[in-house]
């Protein structure tokens, strides 16, 4: 029996059957833990506010925000504000995409056009777009058109720069294949340039999400006509009367919208790249 001491035995790992709740947790560990993180944050916020560590006057509390939100959704003015902000966001972004993608494809594809446009793209991208608002107001007024222009400017260059970059990095040897088979120009675009650039366009759109949302807020702060941005601004002015509850509700609303848009673009990204290995694989550990 003493001979066994000469070996270090590696045992097989026996899979034990675990409690169904444990198995459910293991399958959904990621979702459970991130939910815990979110709930925990709001819980700490509430406790801190109730204990007086966090100043309710400025930072409100989750319960008060929820109450203010409940009040808001029963107010027709809120839905009008939401409609206006949503429309600015939608139209501005749609025009930004409709302009930036075709232009980006052309600038990326035609070398000379690229040389000529590149300095301007850098200029436009570096320019703090909020600084243009006074000019836009002078030409477009304080109405919804001006806010759409601001949203448009927030997204258009980000997506265009990404698109140009995507076209410039289309794989050379696939271009050789297309040329070797005498692909017509139109087919080179549809079979190679556009699918090869799509991942870049989509990641440009992901970056643009934050910028177009910022565009909505900045333009509405400036114009002071209608929209969730105006609601936030006005609420902050009446913080002594508990306005910060409503202000926080508006901020959280925008944040939530940002997350939803970001995730939607991410979903589109995975759909358009289903030919790519391993993108849909979740981590298992």
């Amino acid at each position, binding site marked *: 029996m003493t001979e066994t001491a000469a070996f270090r035995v590696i045992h097989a790992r026996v899979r034990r059957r675990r409690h169904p709740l444990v198995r459910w947790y293991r399958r959904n560990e990621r979702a459970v833990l991130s939910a815990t993180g979110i709930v925990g944050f709001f819980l700490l916020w509430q406790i801190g506010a109730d204990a007086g560590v966090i100043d309710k006057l400025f930072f409100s509390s989750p319960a008060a925000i929820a109450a203010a939100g409940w009040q808001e959704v029963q107010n027709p003015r809120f839905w009008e504000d939401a409609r206006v902000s949503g429309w600015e966001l939608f139209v501005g972004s749609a025009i930004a995409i409709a302009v930036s993608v075709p232009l980006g494809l052309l600038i990326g594809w035609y070398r000379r056009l690229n040389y000529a446009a590149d300095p301007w793209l850098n200029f436009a991208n570096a320019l703090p777009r909020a600084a243009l608002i006074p000019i836009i107001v002078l030409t477009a007024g304080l109405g919804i058109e001006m806010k759409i222009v601001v949203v448009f400017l927030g997204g258009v260059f980000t997506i265009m720069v990404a698109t140009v970059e995507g076209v410039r990095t289309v794989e050379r*040897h*696939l271009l*050789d*294949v*297309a*040329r*070797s*088979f*005498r*692909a*017509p120009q139109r*087919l080179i675009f549809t*079979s*190679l340039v556009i*699918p090869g650039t799509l991942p870049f366009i989509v990641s440009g759109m992901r970056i643009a999400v934050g910028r177009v949302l910022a565009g909505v807020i900045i333009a509405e702060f400036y114009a002071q006509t209608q929209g969730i941005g105006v609601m936030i601004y006005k609420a902050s002015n009446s913080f002594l009367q508990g306005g910060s509850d409503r202000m926080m509700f508006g901020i959280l609303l925008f944040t939530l919208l940002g997350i939803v848009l970001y995730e939607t673009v991410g979903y589109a990204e995975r759909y358009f*790249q289903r*030919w*790519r*290995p391993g993108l849909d694989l979740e981590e298992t550990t």
Partner: protein
Amino acid sequence: MERHLALSARGVQMEYRDRQSGRRLLALENVDLEVPDGAFVSLLGPSGCGKSTFLKIVNGLLRQTAGEIKLHRVAKGREDAMVFQDASLFPWYTVTDNVAYGLVCAGASRSAARERAQPYIDLVGLKGFGDKYPYQLSGGMQQRANLARALAVDAAILLMDEPFASLDAQTRELMQAELLRIWNAARKTVLFVTHQIDEAVFLSDRVIVMAARPGRVIADITIEIPRPRTLEVKRTPKFQEYEEQIWKLIGGQYEPAAGATAS
């Protein structure tokens, strides 16, 4: 005799000017070559001998700076089609759409092209893999699709640019045998570029041996090994004699870490 030639090249020259030094580089110097209809001819040589350059000139991806190449005109379809070194499949297309690509380029509708691609998918042994994406295939299977894409346009001459170079040794041998089977079935003229002596001898009717700096033809060796050939042929004395003969021709040219020019 002219009409029995699938390809004839006279005095083909390819000159580059080096961007930095401004020096002229002769990638190809005065290359003459005749490829009869239906023949399997290999261009063999070290990197920098211009073998791939020659293939690209025939394919029209590059234009020679002097000399002339004639391709036997065919009644319908294409004169030439290229099988690329890296499988070069479009990653966003399925196998079927990749194989159909040349047909779509030639103006066929997508559905007609898919239908016409099918027999070639079967021929190269990818039956049942038509709906897979390239990343789901092994390297050997990707090269089969690459080959099927070139076969599908039904060109008179198949240009193959080191198609098995990136495969592992076993797969490469298997693909060599497969290529002979497919060549036999498809009855094409093949111009095959490789730097592997045994590959060239095993596959070819003729091996054109090339040298680098400047890229030129130094020998034209007819391989008189009867067909059909199986991989066992590689272990016969006759085969090894050919290998030996060619190795002596080019063996001296390989330099360790020759930093310059790729082919």
